[in-house]
């Protein structure tokens, strides 16, 4: 290092020296005298967070939730959660004189007669979309990199609950304006409740305070939306963050980054600045979107009327996949012992979403059970290094995506000039086949990428330089990859297939409990890791290096003359340059 760095004063490697406390110190002393925060803060103020772009996804979710809280409070100052009927007399001309609920009337007032009201409404709605989308993508990141493994399984569970509650929060929120579109959604929800066996019609009557639509649903959804679910979300987010701090963030393996350490920048000042700055950016983007992009123009839909509906009625996107299942399910309904069972509603709405929730909740525990891996894991895995896991999630994503697309089958039919019936039949088949195909393709794809990694390690990277041997054969020149890159590729565990020990007995010679399950576990474990490519051993790597040196010796005479293609492209003079082989 030739540059003079002695003048760099703000290096954080210099040891802290006891100085006279400044202003911040005085405040800290005052607070510590009363709260005793010093002990906890000693470690946490300079807590280390590793850097990677994908760690920002959860942050987007967190900050959009803050935007939701702020904009939501503003909305409550004008919104009236009442289904009492009034005649609209506000600024929006096309609706003037129309009978509507106070909920819609106050929403229109917010949109047209309160300055910044429409901005806040649209910011709130966009932030909600970003919140849920960011949670989903963050969840995929955590799953694909194996960040859910011990000791973080419970934080995974909290995260999944957050996503579930966020979705419910979204549904209750977009139902509040009591417009035609959201009313249609509530009507469908009434149908869902009624399809519940035994207690369905009672549940519907209790929720709506009598017959649909009644006049209770909006105030009830309101309190669920502004108090109950946000309270739960806040508590779970706090727990999510606390666990994150306690476990310390996962990191990608790399030079100097191990299972025992965490390498990165300190919370104060770098991460406080980066995360704090990022909050302003997320907030700002929500504001720009709220100003520029119209969302949920309830004034175009008008008040709810149970005899009216618009073509292309769809819920917000995150509710789209159960709606898609509801569209492609055949009209199955059975009457057993005089009682009606509506499979055509129960399967898509009452069975599949809770089942999906359970599957996603249990993913860490299923994998943990199969591998019986009890170690703590803090280093992330690349998706390709766990092909079965990656393929499983891609398969779930494919199911989700197909169901979601089916939720827009009418729009697809119109835009692509297709038959809605054919789209529906296609989806009925693909919802089963698609995930299967996606699983197989993803798994093989990952394994191919693993092979590629191993090739790079053993034989180097492809230079694109084609060599011709004296015999006239052509081959591509490979060069060794950098040692950092090589280390990164090998910094992963070898897969350990679980093997059941059939002779396992306890001290008294009795077969140990769980022996039969161990057999199942061993089979699943074998299937899970089948065909995975392991990183090369030291011996293999040594041999490959040896081989490469030998090759190198053979082709050394050509070195220095290798054509990179530019010699002869006319951009430089070739006068006096020896042609390859001219030696």
């Amino acid at each position, binding site marked *: 290092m030739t540059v003079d760095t002695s003048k760099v004063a703000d290096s954080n490697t210099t040891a802290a020296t006891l100085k006279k406390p400044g202003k911040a110190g005085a405040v800290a002393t005052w607070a510590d005298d009363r709260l005793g925060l010093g002990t906890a803060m000693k470690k946490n103020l300079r807590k280390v967070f590793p850097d990677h772009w994908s760690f920002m996804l959860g942050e987007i979710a967190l900050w959009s939730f803050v935007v939701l809280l702020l904009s939501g409070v503003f909305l409550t100052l004008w919104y009236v959660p009442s289904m009492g009927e009034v005649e609209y007399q506000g600024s929006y001309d096309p609706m003037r004189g129309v009978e509507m609920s106070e909920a819609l009337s106050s929403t229109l007032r917010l949109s047209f007669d309160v300055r910044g009201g429409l901005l806040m409404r649209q910011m709130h709605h966009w932030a909600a979309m970003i919140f849920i989308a960011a949670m989903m993508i963050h969840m995929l990141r955590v799953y694909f990199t194996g960040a859910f493994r011990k000791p973080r399984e419970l934080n995974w569970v909290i995260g999944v609950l957050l996503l579930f509650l966020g979705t419910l929060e979204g549904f209750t929120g977009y139902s509040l304006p009591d417009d035609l579109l959201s009313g249609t959604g509530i009507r469908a929800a009434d149908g869902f409740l009624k399809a519940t066996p035994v207690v369905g019609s009672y549940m519907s*009557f209790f929720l709506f305070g009598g017959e649909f639509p009644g006049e209770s649903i909006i105030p009830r959804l309101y309190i669920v939306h502004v108090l109950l679910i946000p309270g739960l979300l806040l508590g779970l987010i706090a727990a999510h963050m606390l666990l994150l701090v306690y476990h310390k963030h996962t990191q990608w393996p790399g030079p100097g980054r191990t299972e025992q350490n965490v390498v990165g920048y300190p919370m104060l000042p770098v991460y406080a600045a980066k995360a704090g700055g990022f909050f302003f950016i997320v907030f700002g983007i929500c504001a720009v979107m709220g100003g520029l992009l119209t969302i949920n123009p309830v004034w175009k839909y008008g008040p709810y009327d149970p005899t009216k509906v618009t073509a292309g009625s769809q819920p917000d996107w995150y509710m789209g996949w159960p709606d898609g299942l509801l569209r492609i399910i055949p009209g199955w309904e059975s009457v057993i012992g005089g009682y009606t069972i509506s499979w055509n509603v129960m399967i898509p709405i009452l069975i599949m979403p809770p089942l999906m929730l359970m599957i996603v909740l249990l993913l860490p525990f299923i994998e943990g059970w199969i591998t019986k891996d009890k170690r703590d894991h803090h280093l992330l895995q690349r998706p390709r290094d766990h092909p079965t896991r990656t393929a499983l999630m891609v398969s779930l994503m494919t199911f989700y995506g197909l169901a979601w697309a089916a939720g827009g089958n009418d729009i697809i039919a119109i835009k692509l000039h297709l038959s809605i019936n054919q789209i529906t039949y296609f989806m009925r088949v693909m919802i089963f086949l698609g995930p299967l195909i996606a699983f197989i393709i993803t798994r093989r794809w990952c394994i191919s990428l693993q092979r590629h990694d191993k090739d790079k390690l053993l034989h180097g990277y492809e230079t694109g330089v084609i060599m011709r041997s004296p015999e006239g054969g052509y081959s591509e020149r490979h060069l060794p990859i950098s040692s950092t890159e090589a280390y990164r590729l090998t910094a992963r565990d070898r897969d350990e297939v679980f093997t059941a020990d059939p002779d396992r007995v306890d001290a008294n010679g009795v077969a140990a409990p769980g022996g039969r399950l161990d057999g199942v576990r061993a089979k699943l474990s074998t299937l899970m890791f089948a065909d995975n490519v392991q990183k090369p051993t030291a011996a293999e790597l040594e041999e490959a290096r040896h081989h490469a040196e030998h090759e190198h010796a053979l082709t050394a005479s050509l070195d220095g003359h290798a054509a990179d293609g530019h010699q002869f492209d006319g951009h430089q003079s070739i006068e006096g340059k020896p042609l390859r082989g001219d030696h």
Partner: protein
Amino acid sequence: MTQLDKHPGGEPVHGEGDGHDSHLPVADEPIANPGLPEHTWRPTDVDEDAAKRAERQVSTLFGLSAVFTVLFVVAYFAIEIGDSWDTFGGLGASTLALGMCLGIALILIGVGIIQWARKLMADHEIVEMRHPSRSSDEDRAATVEALNTGLEESGIARRPLIRRSLLGAVAILPLPAVIMLRDLGPTPGQVANAEEGTGLEHTLWGVRPEVRVVRDVIGTPIRPTDIEVGDLVNGIPDGLLDLEGVELQVAKAKAAVILVKMEPDDIKSSQGEDWIVDGVLCFSKICSHVGCPISLYERTTHHVLCPCHQSTFDLSDSAKVIFGPAGRPLPQLPLKLDDAGYLVAQSDFQQPVGPSYWSREK
């Protein structure tokens, strides 16, 4: 931390007999951990001018942000709202200006802070050691000890009578919380009243004999000759429009019907004998799937489609489901003519309208 053995930096913690072979040497790491790369200095670390430049950039961003905040305040007071809700490309001038000013003011602060962090704050990576999530063996032992002592002193293990009666009492304690929700609404049975057309099984069509079918919105009665073959007319029971507010919505949500007229030869079947008057058929408008109002009618095929989930019903064939998720035909309303020649209902629907429910057939 430079030396790595076994798996990347980890001492594998194996439980006993957990199936992982911990006897074989795993220590076959092909490449040793080269350790943290050396720190490289940024231009702003070594060049005072670059640092000054970065400082100016950051403060310019902050300053610009303040300008946009002022512009926000100006826009708030200067731009009228109300009538000007679609000034620019369908966007309100006020909303647009406020959103852009607020957004840019916020983004500039965010970008400024991040620029500050990237260019000027110390960028040495720090290594912090992890500690196992579990507590130490001593802490565990002490906790278990304390737990056992506490349990022992309470005598909960020795006094099953107390234990069981407490469990029983606590187990039924949620009952008040559940039964207190009882008054959220009446039961379907309490609401059911044929004379008022309330409840799941009754509509306004049954409140008196010969309820006229009138046009939706305007409420005029209909003669069969008023409808052309191929027409679809939205109908409601006479008297519905006298209702207001919640009663109106509840009644409408069940009683809405569609009237269609077709050539008598086209009618393949009907849900009842003599329910059709001069080729005019009347069906519930509420989809039997989850209750959307069906509305898209194809006059040549007599198919009607629900726009929510695309259930398709053949009105010429007893409104049978020919496509989509609905499980049952749309209920048909028996029609006849009254003395004045207007279409009236012979009776209420013969089955509940709308989505299915458990005791629908009872």
